[in-house]
């Protein structure tokens, strides 16, 4: 059986590895982007000089032939599901017995005038990175980033590392406050400004200006201001990269519609990762999930189903992480920007404004719902355990030391956190567990 996978990102590659682990079928992975799998999350570090492309490849190049995974560099143009055939942009083709589409995302463009000019780009693919290198090759006087999310801040950090001034246009009144609660959003807003970025809140992009040769020369904002720049970063989210699927019989919505087994409407055709849209998403999950680990789990799920082991997509409890310049962020469970009905919350922030913890629980039975931690590392498995056990917020706080994951000798946060809690909730006093003596800290840290 020949299993063909379109896309060599985390979903496609996880699928290929799972297939190889459990079977001897012929496996081919197709990508037009790069010869080998690389970590998309590390694109920014290549531009910043922290790594080169080769360091972003999680497997050495011999890995693929050793595991008998064929790699083909091509762009797919069309899929003919009646004849199990895919067509490449050079009009050559390939037969498949099972097909997995894991073609990822592309950056959103919202019909702004000038959005296709040279120098306007998102940051998703290796080609985007190359475009950024091209645009900034001879230096630029300023870049404007549109959109206040994770990719926006990454792009700003990239350009900043090369000492180019950056202006960020953010529609919201505070950074990423459509995802983060107000307190964390304020902290990140402060941190972005501390790094010297020109952050414009409540400002939108109206138009991108042409210098007469098809290149960017500036932008006009919703306030009517013109900002001169040679690079415009569009980072207002991503959407499924499925243009080549649309002419086929595979049913698409915003993404390729799949059931919980990653199956499309066509027998033998599957989709996974950013490009897939769940018909009925699991609880607390969006139909299209664009994070690294869901791509990984969906790739694995698709592979198991291809092998005839019916397996439903089960991402478990929500979690995520990111880094905003120097501040790390993790979240476990659900902390929404605005509390839902019946939820209660507690927020603690360190005096220096670089560390914080935000806890959310259900009022009626005090069941723990989620946590945001900034500048503090917490243990994934411990929180997963608490969510599974339906622990109360009081239990979580009492045992919070068990979840601490900061490096040794880091300034502990637990006592400050608990004393702030005890002041705010005198009726629910907490006594920290696991007081760590010096001896215990040395020998059982």
């Amino acid at each position, binding site marked *: 059986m020949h299993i063909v996978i379109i896309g060599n990102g985390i979903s496609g590659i996880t699928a290929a590895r799972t297939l190889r*682990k459990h079977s001897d079928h012929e496996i081919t992975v197709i990508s037009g982007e790069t010869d080998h799998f690389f970590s998309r999350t590390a694109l920014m570090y290549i531009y910043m000089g922290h790594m080169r492309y080769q360091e972003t490849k999680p497997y*050495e190049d011999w890995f693929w032939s050793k595991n008998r995974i064929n790699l083909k560099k091509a762009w797919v143009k069309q899929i003919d599901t009646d004849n199990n055939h895919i067509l490449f942009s050079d009009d050559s083709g390939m037969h498949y017995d099972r097909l997995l589409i894991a073609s990822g995302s592309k950056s959103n463009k919202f019909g702004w005038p000038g959005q296709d000019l040279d120098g306007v780009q998102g940051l998703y693919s290796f080609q985007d990175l190359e475009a950024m290198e091209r645009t900034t090759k001879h230096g630029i006087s300023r870049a404007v980033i549109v959109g206040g999310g994770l990719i926006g801040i990454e792009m700003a950090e990239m350009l900043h590392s090369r000492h180019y001034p950056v202006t960020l246009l953010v529609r919201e009144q505070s950074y990423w406050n459509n995802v983060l609660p107000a307190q964390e959003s304020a902290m990140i807003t402060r941190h972005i400004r501390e790094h010297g970025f020109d952050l414009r809140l409540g400002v939108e992009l109206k138009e991108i200006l042409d210098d007469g040769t098809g290149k960017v020369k500036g932008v006009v904002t919703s306030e009517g201001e013109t900002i001169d720049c040679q690079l415009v970063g569009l980072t207002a989210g991503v959407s499924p990269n499925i243009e080549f699927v649309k002419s086929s019989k595979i049913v698409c919505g915003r993404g390729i519609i799949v059931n919980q087994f990653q199956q499309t409407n066509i027998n033998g055709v599957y989709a996974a990762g950013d490009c897939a849209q769940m018909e009925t998403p699991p609880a607390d999950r969006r139909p299209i999930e664009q994070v690294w680990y869901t791509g*990984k789990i969906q790739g694995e799920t698709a592979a198991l189903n291809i092998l005839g082991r019916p*397996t439903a997509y089960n991402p478990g409890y929500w*979690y995520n992480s990111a880094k905003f310049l120097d501040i790390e962020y993790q979240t476990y469970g659900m902390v929404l920007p605005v509390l839902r009905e019946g939820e209660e919350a507690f927020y603690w922030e360190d005096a220096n404004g670089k560390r914080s913890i935000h806890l959310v629980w259900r009022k009626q039975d005090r069941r723990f719902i989620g946590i945001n931690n900034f500048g503090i590392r917490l243990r994934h*498995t411990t929180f997963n355990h608490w969510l599974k056990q339906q622990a109360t917020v009081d239990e979580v706080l009492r045992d919070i030391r068990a979840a601490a994951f900061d490096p040794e*000798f*880091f300034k502990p946060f637990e006592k400050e956190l608990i004393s702030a809690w005890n002041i705010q909730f005198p009726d629910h006093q907490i006594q920290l567990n696991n007081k760590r003596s010096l001896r215990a800290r040395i020998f059982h840290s």
Partner: protein
Amino acid sequence: MSEINSSLSLANPHPANYNGTQKLGLALIAIGVLSLALAWVGIGKDQALYFFIAMLAGLMGGGLIYFYGTYGKLPAGIKNNRVFFSSIASRGALGWMLGIILTGFYISLYFFPKYLNGLISLFDPLSQLVRGKDSDQWFVYGTFYTIAVLVMGIKFMMKYRHNRYQLIRTSSVTFFQLILAWTLPIIMENLYNYGPYLSYFWPLDYDAIFPGSLSYVLKSGKLGQFVVVWGLIMTFVATPILTYFFGKRWYCSWVCGCGGLAETAGDPFRHLSDKSLRAWKIERWLIHSVLAFIIILTVLLLVDNAATGKVLGDAAGKSLAKTYSFLIGSIFAGVIGTGFYPILGNRAWCRFGCPMAAYMGIIQRFKSRFRITTNGAQCISCGNCSTYCEMGIDVRWYAQRGQNIVRASCVGCGICSAVCPRGVLKLETGPENAQRTGIQLDSHGLIPLEAVKILD
């Protein structure tokens, strides 16, 4: 990618943007380098003191001012911007030149010290002051070494000032170099005519228990006896116990002088270590061969000595010992180990050659509480951990599978954990087999089948 930086700076270079503080630092460094160069070729012999002060103030003061100008005003955080664009830190033309200069220095030091005569006299004033006698090549080397660890150690602490593990660890390794490997031997030499290093033990200090050294050391009375007993206790009792509890890092990145130089002056080159599987295979053969060599050699020499030369014959024993001293002690540890920093990275000796590291590595791999744990499934495979591992461990290989990292070569520097953008890695020394609850990924980094709901 497209940008290559030809600056000589090892600290976040951007020539267009030097601030006033950095320029002042660079000017002082230039004066220091000039004084050193002039003295080396023999100019200023009569004013050695002034040249020495100019050299010392220029290199140390200038260096510190420059680094302060570089890091002091930036927000605390990871500072790896442009590392791979730097010619000197990324095997560009300048990196190769620096490699050749350092290698040449080591070859002169070990085999042709007369070429260092100018430098040696430059250090006479200091040597007279602290030891009451003229300098020699080893005094020059030890002093330079200590200055490098001090200045670059302070630079490292500025760079990682947000990370208390790095601050404490670097203070420790700098302290041991300055006090145990420089000051104390000088004091003891003044007092007892014998200046042992209390922070080096067999098998790294390979001839520590050779019959020849033993009889020499024991001649210096009570101190000599103490040093021998101290060394034996450290090698055979303290090392296994400490390595069991803390991993080999208690020595390699907290105490050892070779490690001290690697962690401070060598830090800008840490990303140059080879992460390939092939390099790991070479590492295992090479380092364990060196360990076997020194064990066999030492045992042979001791047995031979006990049998008054009847086993080996004096000449054969001596020539074997000389072979080790030349190949391993000088060429591997010095010329390649440090001279090749800009080519092989800062831990080539520690990774491929050091018998002490090999010995502790075996304990760490098979019987130690030390490991680097992975934070559930938070890893995004970005590769910062592997890139900045000075020991060439492909940390990401484990992290993306949710596996603990238990590797013989890990010196516990903690940089993988520091550069991780998602808070995934933690150096831990809790009890063995501590079970953590929650998801355990399978050996392929995937959710295990039985954890996924299977429908019929």
